[in-house]
């Protein structure tokens, strides 16, 4: 007599399903092929490159001012941070001294950009988890106030092209201090809202806690940076470990997670937003009138031959620019070290063994910008 357990009479086969590139949960055009056993992800094959525009190669045909516009389009949620890496690399090559006022304004704008980028994350992540609408419109309301300020200063809502090698393109508006105060007030309220809306919400916690855990060692091995790495408990923040601009003169904490799961990545970003507000307040107190460009800037900037790698802490991690110059007014080679690309590599490790719905949550918690991954 043979006995069979119910459900074991037939052989089961893993199923390959395709997700993306046109999928609302993939944050752009990212395609992943999932090998699923029922609801469990057994394997994940990521496909990138749908958004490849050759921005690095294009920047090699541009002089140093023209290339700034391409950096905006590389990282379209943290444009100031992307511009900063590029112009700082040029400044390092050319040996330019940036006036103090320009440095403070750059810091304020970069931190505001971090706020707007993290607001985007809180909204989009809520949508990924299934809080459709509410979190998204709340965080977009706060993001709008920041974008309004950027528009008043630079003239554009997204593609600012405002930093220049040596300083800034033009002076900020006269009511800059008052406007930043207003924006910070609404941002504080927005952080409180997002925190109250989701952080303690039982459904949200059930969907995020102990999902997509990555250990500190694995995260370092994969090259993760930014909030993804810090959520695993590694306190690496380039603003602290190798301060650029004036970050050494301001006081802020680096939040780290303990478990390294999706929930920790959320907590780290919420806390980072509070720290950004703190940094901006200190910057505003130290902002003094003065020049925003060095005296005697050449009409066309030329750099001596050399190579330089410069990295800054963008909202998604280390945004590095490797630039080779053979002299002249344009880079001979430009390579962007994308934080999202490195963070995305860890997705496979995190997602295998989880449910399909959790794979979406994990991808959302990495907060990728596909334009930066593909460049």
């Amino acid at each position, binding site marked *: 007599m043979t006995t069979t357990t119910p459900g074991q009479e037939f052989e089961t086969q893993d199923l390959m399903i395709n997700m993306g590139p046109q999928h609302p949960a993939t944050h752009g055009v990212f395609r992943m092929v999932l090998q699923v056993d029922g609801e469990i992800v057994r394997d994940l094959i990521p496909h990138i490159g749908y958004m490849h525009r050759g921005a690095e190669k294009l920047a090699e045909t541009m002089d140093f001012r023209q290339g700034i*516009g391409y950096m905006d389009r590389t990282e379209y949620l943290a444009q100031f941070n992307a511009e900063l890496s590029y112009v700082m690399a040029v400044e390092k090559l050319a040996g330019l001294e940036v006036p103090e006022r320009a440095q403070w304004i750059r810091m304020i704008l970069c931190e505001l950009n971090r706020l707007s980028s993290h607001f985007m994350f809180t909204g989009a992540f809520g949508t990924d988890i299934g809080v459709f609408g509410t979190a998204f419109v709340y965080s977009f309301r706060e993001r709008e106030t920041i974008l309004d300020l950027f528009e008043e200063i630079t003239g554009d809502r997204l593609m600012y092209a405002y930093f220049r090698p040596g300083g800034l393109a033009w002076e900020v508006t006269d009511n800059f201090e008052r406007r930043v105060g207003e924006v910070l007030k609404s941002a504080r309220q927005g952080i409180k809202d997002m925190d109250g809306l989701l952080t303690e919400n039982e459904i949200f916690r059930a969907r995020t806690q102990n999902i997509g855990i990555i250990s500190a060692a694995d995260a370092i091995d994969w090259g993760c940076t930014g909030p993804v790495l810090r959520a695993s408990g590694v306190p690496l923040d380039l603003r602290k470990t190798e301060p650029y601009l004036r970050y050494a003169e301001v006081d802020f904490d680096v939040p780290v997670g303990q478990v390294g799961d999706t929930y920790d990545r959320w907590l780290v970003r919420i806390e980072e937003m509070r720290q950004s507000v703190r940094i901006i307040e200190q910057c505003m107190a130290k902002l003094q009138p003065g020049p925003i460009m060095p005296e005697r800037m050449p009409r066309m900037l030329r750099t001596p031959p050399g190579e330089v790698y410069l990295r800054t802490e963008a909202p998604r991690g280390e945004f590095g620019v490797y630039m080779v110059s053979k002299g002249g007014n344009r880079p001979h080679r430009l390579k962007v070290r994308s934080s999202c690309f490195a963070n995305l590599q860890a997705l496979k490790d995190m997602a295998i063994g989880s449910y399909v719905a959790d794979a979406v949550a994990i991808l959302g918690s990495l907060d990728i910008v596909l334009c930066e991954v593909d460049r």
Partner: protein
Amino acid sequence: MKGLLRSMGVTLSAFMRKPVTREFPETHRELPERDRAFPLLLWDFEQTEPFCTGCHACERACPVECMTVLMKDNPNHKSAGGDSTRRKIIDKFWIDYGRCMRCNICVEVCNFDAIAMNNTWSGHEMSVYDRADLVQDLPQLLSESRGGELKAWRAP
């Protein structure tokens, strides 16, 4: 349960706030002075001709090569019996708005303050059915400034 109630509290408090949205096509918000839409040419009302002399500076500096500039001798110049101080003047000018990436570099490099970014709503609401219609020629580029509606902003 406590967390859920807190979430509900946040949502309820949003009822009390003023709405931030606007019924867009009917009502427009006021654009900031520095708003950058697309580049336009400026009209010199004193000498009744464009400021642009067709020097190709913007064309050379444009990262996406969206401009085409042709220059001619100014028929209105003093040497020709006119009263203009410009020896050369713009003959034909095209900007392909479909290619322009609104980086403001053309405005920065202009030696004659002849080009400026459109900071009115007409620069934002310009959808067309054919991409070729986005290529603007000289009369189209000048019309906004000639009508006197454009108050161009210049970096201080």
